[in-house]
């Protein structure tokens, strides 16, 4: 695929302004085709994504030294844009010097993929497919509707709120996961040692699966929640303070203290909580 190199300096609408020694702020605008994808790769600093109108991706960024630069490329058909932080040859920037802070405006329906090492990622109000990956940077997603949201982390804490009617898939390893009002046809969360906290009604006639090795799982449901719930731990403690009707048929034999199953209201969403040794607790909001 032919790539058009967009010169950062040529495309810069304003050179900016040095806020203080070593900091430079720039802004570029790039056209993107409807339904296109923006890939962002930035190790340190931050990446903030917000929604915009029109067909332009607006990239505002602040560098903290002249040892790094931003490469921005676009395919000829404008269906894919790549924004990548890049260390200049012969330079060995310190961690602080290699950081770049991005504020990127994404048009409606455009998908994004963000990869960082330590940089936190914040996504607000986007509508395309969202794929976020960070080693240790906090991942925050809010006000997203009808999207596929994939998050991967090594030790990155993940926080989501008001993500509705979505396909949410989180693999967080050691990072903790906090979900508030996250609903959809499919919500899946997996950690090794990270704690999982879910607050919401698990609506959407969906499938909710939360698994962990040694982290805890805490599910807080309103009394109106319509769920078919199972909770199982191989060697951890399982507690339930939420009023459930016992199921007559289950695929396993419930064992007091380590598993239970039950339904609430019409049981329209399936909720499965699984741990190896982590504590599972279901409580009423």
């Amino acid at each position, binding site marked *: 695929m032919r790539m058009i190199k967009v010169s950062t300096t040529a495309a810069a609408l304003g050179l900016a302004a040095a806020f203080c020694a070593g900091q430079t702020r720039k802004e570029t605008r790039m056209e993107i085709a409807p339904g296109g994808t923006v890939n962002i790769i930035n190790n340190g600093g931050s990446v903030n994504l917000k929604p915009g109108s029109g067909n332009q991706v607006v990239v505002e960024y602040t560098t903290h030294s002249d040892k790094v630069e931003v490469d921005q490329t676009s395919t000829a058909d404008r269906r894919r844009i790549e924004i990548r932080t890049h260390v200049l040859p012969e330079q060995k920037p*310190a*961690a602080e010097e290699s950081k770049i802070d991005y504020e990127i405006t994404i048009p409606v329906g455009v998908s994004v993929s963000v990869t960082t090492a330590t940089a936190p990622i914040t996504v607000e109000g986007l509508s395309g497919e969202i794929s976020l990956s960070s*080693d240790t940077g906090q991942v925050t997603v809010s006000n997203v509707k009808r999207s596929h949201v994939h998050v991967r982390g090594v*030790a990155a804490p993940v926080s989501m709120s008001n993500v509705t009617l979505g396909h949410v898939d989180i693999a967080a390893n*050691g990072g903790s996961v906090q979900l508030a009002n996250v609903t959809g046809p499919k919500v899946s969360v997996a950690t090794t040692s990270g704690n999982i906290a879910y607050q919401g009604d698990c609506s959407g006639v969906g499938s909710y699966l939360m698994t962990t090795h040694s982290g805890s799982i805490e599910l807080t449901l309103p009394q109106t929640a319509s769920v078919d719930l199972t909770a199982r731990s191989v060697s951890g403690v399982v507690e339930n303070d939420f009023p459930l009707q016992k199921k007559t048929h289950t695929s396993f034999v419930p064992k007091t203290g380590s598993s239970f199953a039950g339904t609430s209201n019409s049981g329209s969403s399936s909720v499965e909580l699984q741990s*190896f040794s982590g504590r599972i607790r279901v409580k009423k909001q």
Partner: protein
Amino acid sequence: MNCQEFQEVLPYIIERGGSVKEEEHLRTCPACAELVQELKYIAQQAKLLLPMYDPNPRVWSGIEHALHREGLLQEGRMSRQGHEMTYFPTQAKSWTPLGWAMALASLLAFTVVLVNYHSHLPAAQVAAQNSTTQAAPFDGDDQRLILQVSKQEPAVRRAYEDSLREANAYIEDAQQAVSRDPDDEAANEQLLQAYQQKETLYEMAVARSLP
């Protein structure tokens, strides 16, 4: 100066203070600054062991044998209670119990510093250094993964090491549970999840290595 270069000269920095370049790196790198602070604290704490540490006589004996074996101590040079001693007039006070205690405390401090220093090196480098003395903490693939991410910041490298260790523990726990009861559906699902967590780590590390 990057973190790796800084950590290579770390023992000298702890002992004598750093050069202008090293001090500059220390000011700008929170990870290395934290490491130096930890090492200084450990060295200080090790000194406090001196007045209260009274090792078992077998420890003295072990040290004596080791020194003889290495040719660092001549026969009869040791001055442990109950042993025949040969005195050298000019050095008669060199191996007093206090001297030994100080030497042992220094050895302990050095060992603690070295262990801690190693924990901040790339795992593959540590594994290579320790290959003849102790088992590697990770298998070959895991070590390659850690080597791959070792170019990242120390905090990132540690995050991968910790997560790999946790994923391996997850797999081991789940495997044991499955072998205890192969029909245990929950344990089987946990084993699958454990492998998927490890797979995620590998995918992320591979993504990091792409140009």
